[in-house]
Structure formats: structure tokens, C-alpha cells
């Protein structure tokens, strides 16, 4: 049995208190952390109550087999190079984007992102060899959800999946630059391009309303065909050309479209054996045609037209999760055939292999998780949604001038109080302290009416001007400033000033040359405290400012009134409102702490 000595007990108690203190520190700081953390989250994540930052969707959207390797391109901007025989990732590179699309040629992979421009990766080592921005001035990049691209010959055509982005960009791979921008405004506008195909010298664009034909020589839309299946407008997700026919994968089944007659010549929908009508991808292999749908896979024998459904092999699992029970999962976004194996890229980031000879799943392969989505964009969006620059400027002007004015007034007054016991000094200092008891709203009502009245009588604007609010603020922070500054002046030894007086200095000179320089730390501390308090003032600013002179608190209040569910932007705004005062405080922390506590301990 170990005897617990007094010393050991002390040590144990000390450790326990240390731990309690650290726990309490963590709890204390948590709300601030949460504010900053939430400002980097996606609002849909916040609204669904997710705690962790979400990850980019790692769905396999494009695949290609080349020289013993398979390249799998994910929607998160990741490219995986996979060895064909060992089925292991040889190299994995990500440009960390969202809803990315890809075009592959013999040498390069072209990664088209909405927010980061276009990147060129070399196939052999997946090294980034080129980066091209779109130079689009009139579009808000933060709204881009996705992109679409095709490559043919030495040219790339790309568009961004944005509803009012009615442009196709042409990129010349040999010149390494964007050569032209084709405007695709048409009778179906607004049109959102989600798929493309090259058709002779024309470009076929599939979108949410149908099909566009762009003549590349003329550089404009020559015809537009709404794709109707039954009475429903179908969104064209994929365009494939086979045997001179145009096959469309649409949201209402697969369609063979006849351009000359401008109508559907054949529709394959759930009635014909496709279980899901939502066809993401079409692929031809030999005499078979594969439909990658939202629920799985269907195979059609082109010669007979009979459809075999393989959906029962698939178990839907949510994105990012892995399930070992079944081999395949989710909606199919890309398909390739490699030898006798069919490879499927799905939404859950899973690549599944199906043995075509046996018609059964043979293996699967999970892509690495997408990158963590840190939404820096919230901070940019915030500036789009509120006029934050103006508020920040106003707050700085108002608080800065208030600080200067209040300091001028309070320094002189505090000096007078601390050095002279003049008739009425007790009464005056008591009155000054007594002002702290008066509710602010009691001033606010008369001052508000006074301001309105002054403007009515003299025609000079007072309410809503910097002048008015600064005047009010300065006056309000004087009493408290005097209270703190008195302590500082009292701490300066009187002997110094008396010596200066004996040397023949006037009282003003004594103040200016002796007392003031010694009180500078205290003045700084008090000034910063006034600045912080003015920064925090809402009630007066709310009533006495107008649209031009709004300060941050009022601006944020208006913003949260209008955007009640945009917690991400709210937290971003809150963070930005907190940072200036935090920086200021930590720069001058020592002075402030000293100044405030000196006043307190003296009572």
C-alpha cells in the first residue's frame, strides 16, 4: 500500500485543476471556433445538421483505357491511373474542384472545372502542364455548378453547366489558347448545356430543353429542337452517334433522334424494359448497346432490340460510403469496355467490373475519397450579398473619429479631475459617474427627435450623417473614458510636475510636456476600449444612420433579417466583423488589461 504524502496530494490536486481548466478553456473557445468553422461550410451541410465538412463527390464521370492503364476521372477533379492487370492505383492526382468534366486524348487529359479554369495533365505522369482561365468577366464563377467538354481533332469545346451561361468556348490545343466564344442564344433560351457531341462540322449541344445544332463555320446556332418524350420535355444527358443515327440519353429514356425530320424516331423508356428512365450514358460495343441509368445498367441487343436489365445486381448506397455486400452501386455515370470486361463508374466513387462473357460482377474498386470542401467562397459570396465594404468603411470612420474625439475630451477632463480639487469637482465627477445609470434609450428618443427637428428647421441633415452619429458616440464614451484615464493620471508621480512648475513651466506646458507623454499608454488603452465599444454599438446606429452611413452591426442585422437561412454567409459576416477588433485587441492587449484593472482595483 502506497502512502499518499502531502506533497503527492498537492501534485494530484494541481493536475486535476489543470485538466479542469483546459476543459473549461475548450468549452469557452468552442463557440468562436464554431463560428469560424461554420463560415467555411456549405449551407446545405449546415441545414442538414452535418457536423463535419463534407467532401467533394468522387463519382467516376469519365474513364479511358490506354496502353495498359485505365484512367478514371472523378467529379472531384481527381484523376486515377490504374494498372490494368493488378487493378491498383499507380498514381492519383486531384485539381480539387467540383463537378468536373474531362476530355482525354492520346497524350493529355483536359480537366475542365467551373471555378478553377481548365487544366492540362500529361497522361504518362499525370503532371499538370498547362492551366487556362476562361477570362469571363460577366459571370459569377461562384455559381458555376459544373462543366462539360468534348474533344475532337485539335480542338476542345467546352461549356459551363449554368443556366444563363449561353456560350461555348473553343480551345485550340496546338495554339494552347481559347480561340473563340460561340454565343448560343436561341429560341429555347435560357438553355443549360449538359452534353455535347461533334456531328460532321456541326456541334450538337444537349441541354435541359432539348438539342441545339451549332454550325462551327458560322459560329452560331442554326437550329434548335426541343426533345419531347410523350408530353414531357427531356433533358439530354448524353449524345452518341452510331451508324449515322443520333442516340440521346435523356431524363425520359433513351431516344433516337432524326435531325432531318426533327422528331424522335424511336424511344426506349421504362415501357421497353429500361427500369430507370434517367439515362446518363450510352455506349456501343459490338452489337450491344449499354445504357448507364440512375439505377443501374441495361443492355440492348441492337440487331434484335431486346433489352436485358441488370439493375438487380446493383444496390444503391449513398455517396462516399462503401458497402462490401454487393459489388456495384449507385447511378452509373461512365462506361467503358476493356477486353471482355465492362467497367462502370458510379456516383459512390466505385468502379465496378462486370465480366461480359458471364454477365456477372467480377470485381470492384473504390476511388479515394474526394477532397474536403472548405468553402472559401462564402467570404466572396458574402461581399456579393451585403454591401460589407461600405459598412466596414463606415464603422472604421465612425469608430476611429469617435475614439479621437472622445480621447481629446476625456484626457483633458481626466487630468483636471486628477490634479485639481477645484470647487465643484466632487459634484462633477459624481455627475459623470451617474450618467452611467441612465438607460441609453432615454437619450435616444429625444436625440432622435432633436435630429429630425434640426433638419426640419435648418435644412441641414443631421440624422444619417457621420457628423451626427460621431457626435453622439463621442459624448457617450466620455464619462467611462474619464473614469479609466483618471486612474492613469493618478499613477503619474506629482513630483515630476511640481519640479517642472518650479522650473517655470506654465500649467499647460506641464500637461503637454510632462503628464501627457507619461499617460500615452493609458490613453491608447482607453482609446482602443472606446473603439471596441463603438464597434459594438447597435441601438443608436440602427436609429441614427441611413443606407449610406450604416455600420456593421446594423448591416448584419439587416442581412440576417433578409437571409434567414444563409447561416454560412451569416457566420462569414460575423467572423469578418470580429476580426478587426480581435487584431486591435491583441496588438494592445497589455495596455487595455492594465488600464481596465487599474481603474477597478482603485474602485
Amino acid at each position: 500500500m502506497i502512502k499518499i504524502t502531502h506533497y503527492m496530494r498537492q501534485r494530484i490536486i494541481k493536475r486535476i485543476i489543470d485538466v479542469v481548466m483546459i476543459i473549461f478553456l475548450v468549452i469557452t473557445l468552442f463557440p468562436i471556433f464554431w463560428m469560424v468553422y461554420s463560415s467555411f461550410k456549405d449551407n446545405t451541410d449546415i441545414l442538414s445538421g452535418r457536423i463535419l465538412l463534407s467532401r467533394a463527390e468522387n463519382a467516376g464521370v469519365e474513364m479511358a483505357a490506354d496502353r495498359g492503364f485505365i484512367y478514371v476521372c472523378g467529379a472531384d477533379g481527381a484523376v486515377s491511373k490504374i494498372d490494368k492487370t493488378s487493378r491498383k492505383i499507380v498514381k492519383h492526382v486531384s485539381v480539387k474542384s467540383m463537378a468536373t468534366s474531362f476530355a482525354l486524348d492520346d497524350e493529355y487529359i483536359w480537366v475542365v472545372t467551373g471555378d478553377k479554369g481548365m487544366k492540362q495533365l500529361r497522361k504518362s505522369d499525370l503532371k499538370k502542364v498547362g492551366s487556362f482561365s476562361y477570362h469571363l468577366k460577366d459571370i459569377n464563377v461562384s455559381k458555376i455548378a459544373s462543366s462539360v467538354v468534348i474533344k475532337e481533332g485539335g480542338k476542345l469545346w467546352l461549356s459551363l453547366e449554368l443556366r444563363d451561361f449561353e456560350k461555348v468556348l473553343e480551345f485550340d490545343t496546338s495554339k494552347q489558347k481559347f480561340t473563340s466564344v460561340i454565343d448560343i442564344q436561341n429560341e429555347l433560351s435560357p438553355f443549360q448545356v449538359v452534353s455535347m457531341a461533334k456531328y460532321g462540322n456541326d456541334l450538337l449541344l444537349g441541354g435541359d430543353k432539348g438539342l441545339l445544332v451549332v454550325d462551327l463555320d458560322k459560329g452560331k446556332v442554326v437550329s434548335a429542337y426541343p426533345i419531347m418524350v410523350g408530353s414531357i420535355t427531356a433533358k439530354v444527358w448524353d449524345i452518341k452517334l452510331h451508324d449515322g443515327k443520333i442516340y440521346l440519353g435523356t431524363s425520359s429514356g433513351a431516344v433516337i433522334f432524326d435531325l432531318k425530320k426533327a422528331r424522335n424516331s424511336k424511344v426506349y423508356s421504362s415501357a421497353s424494359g429500361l427500369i430507370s428512365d434517367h439515362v446518363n450514358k450510352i455506349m456501343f460495343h459490338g452489337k450491344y448497346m449499354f445504357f448507364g441509368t440512375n439505377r443501374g445498367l441495361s443492355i440492348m441487343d441492337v440487331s434484335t432490340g431486346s433489352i436485358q436489365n441488370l439493375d438487380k445486381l446493383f444496390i444503391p448506397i449513398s455517396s462516399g460510403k462503401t458497402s462490401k455486400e454487393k459489388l456495384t452501386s449507385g447511378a452509373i455515370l461512365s462506361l467503358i469496355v476493356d477486353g471482355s470486361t465492362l467497367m462502370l463508374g458510379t456516383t459512390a466513387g466505385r468502379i465496378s467490373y462486370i465480366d461480359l462473357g458471364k454477365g456477372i460482377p467480377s470485381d470492384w474498386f473504390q476511388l479515394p475519397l474526394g477532397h474536403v470542401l472548405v468553402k472559401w467562397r462564402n467570404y466572396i459570396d458574402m461581399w456579393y450579398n451585403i454591401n460589407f465594404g461600405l459598412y466596414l468603411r463606415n464603422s472604421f470612420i465612425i469608430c476611429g473619429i469617435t475614439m479621437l474625439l472622445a480621447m481629446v475630451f476625456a484626457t483633458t477632463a481626466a487630468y483636471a479631475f486628477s490634479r485639481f480639487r477645484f470647487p465643484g469637482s466632487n459634484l462633477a465627477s459624481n455627475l459623470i459617474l451617474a450618467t452611467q445609470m441612465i438607460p441609453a434609450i432615454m437619450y435616444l428618443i429625444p436625440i432622435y427627435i432633436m435630429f429630425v427637428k434640426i433638419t426640419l428647421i435648418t435644412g441641414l441633415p443631421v440624422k444619417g450623417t457621420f457628423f451626427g452619429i460621431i457626435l453622439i458616440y463621442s459624448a457617450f464614451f466620455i464619462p467611462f473614458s474619464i473614469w479609466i484615464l483618471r486612474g492613469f493620471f493618478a499613477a503619474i508621480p506629482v513630483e515630476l510636475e511640481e519640479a517642472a512648475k518650479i522650473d517655470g513651466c506654465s500649467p499647460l506646458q506641464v500637461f503637454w510636456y510632462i503628464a501627457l507623454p507619461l499617460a500615452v499608454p493609458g490613453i491608447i488603452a482607453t482609446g482602443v476600449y472606446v473603439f471596441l465599444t463603438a464597434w459594438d454599438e447597435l441601438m443608436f446606429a440602427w436609429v441614427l444612420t441611413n443606407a449610406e452611413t450604416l455600420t456593421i452591426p446594423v448591416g448584419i442585422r439587416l442581412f440576417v433579417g433578409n437571409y434567414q437561412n444563409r447561416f454560412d454567409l451569416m457566420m462569414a459576416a460575423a467572423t469578418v466583423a470580429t476580426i478587426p477588433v480581435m487584431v486591435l485587441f491583441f496588438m494592445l492587449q497589455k495596455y487595455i488589461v492594465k488600464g481596465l484593472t487599474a481603474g477597478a482595483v482603485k474602485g
Partner: protein
Amino acid sequence: MHKKEELWRRIKKFRFAYLFLAPTAIAMLFLHFLPVVQGIYMSFLKLDQFTIGRYLLAPFIWFENYYEVLFNPISPIRIGLFEAVRNTVIYTVVVTLGTLWVGLIVALMVNRRFRARGLIRTLFLFPWIVPTYVTGLLWGFMWQRGIGIINVFLVDILHLLPDKPFWLLGPNTLWAIIIPTVWRYWPLSMLMLLAGLQAIPEELYEAADIDGATPWRKFWMITFPLLRPVWAILILFGIIYNTYSFNIVIMMFGFGAGFPGEWGDLMMTNIFRNTFQRWNFGMGSATSVVLLVVMIIIVNIWFRYYQKAEEIRG
């Protein structure tokens, strides 16, 4: 005659002090004294959207505003006034004592020797730098029922409660405004109390150790009484500032747009709403005057008590 000359001589002697005081005196006269006098005068006027044009010439109605506020149970301004008073009293008492005790406990904890003491003390000051309107906004977000992190912690992670409670609805609202306020203001108490603790001479504790006093006794017999000047001031200012608390409540409910509900309303939000949204300036002034009178009484009681305590101590 002689006395008057003597006074005049002294005033002349201190002309420099008066000169220094002049700017402040003028500012205070126009922006403190004048508005307060006006406010008191306005509380006797029938001042609403119809008579505001005439301002001080509006009908003088003596104590009718006060009657409406204090005694007429069916006057529009009385709606929610009782709740606001009740909430303000609970809020002020709990927040003042809460900030004091949390501040005292942490001050005692950080007033020891340990590693990274300066850093930890600074980190404890963090909440105090967050502006109050941000505090209201942030906690309003954290108190959300379905998605707020507090409910997620309590229910989804720790399973302390069977069901997610509403924090911004019903009686819970009172806690939803008290806790953020304590969170925001306790670092200031800690700062002050820490300064007070450091001023207590070490010899007192050494003497107590020799007498074999327990830490508990040492706290109650030495620390607490010697900190009296600090906590007395903290209580005084706590009462004043918390009674006039506005920002946190106004930012938390409906995110700045809505009515705080009967358990979240405080005096200031109540007066503000009645004054600037109903344009009932006369009654608003009357309510603030009543509030001021109550505050003066409380502060006087405080001074009496404090002076008596100081006298006893000698």
C-alpha cells in the same frame, strides 16, 4: 461677502482646471443633460405619430403616460411589460452572479503557476472581444433546434435528452439569452478579480497555513473579503449593464427580425419596440424614466450597503 470673494478667488486659482473641463462640460450639457431633461419632459407629453410634428408643444398630459404604463392593464404598451420586467429581473440577477462566479473560479484557477500561463490567460479573454451583436447571432445559430450544435451535442452525440428541445421558444429562451451573456462577460470579471487577487499579500495565506486553515476557509476568510472592492463594483456595473442589455437579445431572435417571445423579451427591447415601431415616444420616455428611477434606487441601496460594509471593516 468675504465668503463669496474667497470662492471667487479659488475659482480663479483653478481656472486652468475649468478650462480643461470646458469641452467635456459643454458636450455633456448638450448630449447628456439636455436629452435627459427632454426625456423627462417628453414623458409628460402625448407624443405619438400624430403629435410628433409639434414635438415639445404636443399636448401636456401630466402623468397620463405613467398611468398607462404602470396602472392601466389594457393600454397597448402594457402588453408584454410584465413579462419583460420579470425576465429582466431574472436575467440581471443570474447574469450578474453568473459572470461573477465563473470569473472568480477561473481567476482562482489561472492565478497559479503553470505552463503557458500568459497564453492561457489571453485565450480566456477571447469571448470578451467578440462583439455582442455577433454573440447574439452566433448563439442564435447554435441554439437552433434541428441543426444547432448544442442540440446535436446534447441529443445526437451525448444522448442526454430523448428529444431535441426548442431553445428559442418558450421558457427555455431565458436560458438561451442568459448563457451567451455570461459567456460574453465573464472574462471581464476574471480580469478584474485576477488583478484583485494579485494585490492580496502572500503573507496572509502563509499565516493561515501556519494556523492550519483549509483552502476552503482560506477562500472565505481571506480571498473573498479582500476582493470586496472588486466584486462590489462588478455587481454594481453588472446590474446596470445587464438591465440595459439589448444587442444579444435583439440579434438572437428571428435573426434580428422578429419578436423575442414572452420569455426572451427584456426591458430595453420592449421599450425600443414600443417606441420606434409603434411611434409611441411619450410612453417610451415614461417607461425609461420609471426604469431610471428604479435604477437610481438600486444604486443607492448598493452605495448604502457598500459604505456600511466599508465602515465596519474600518
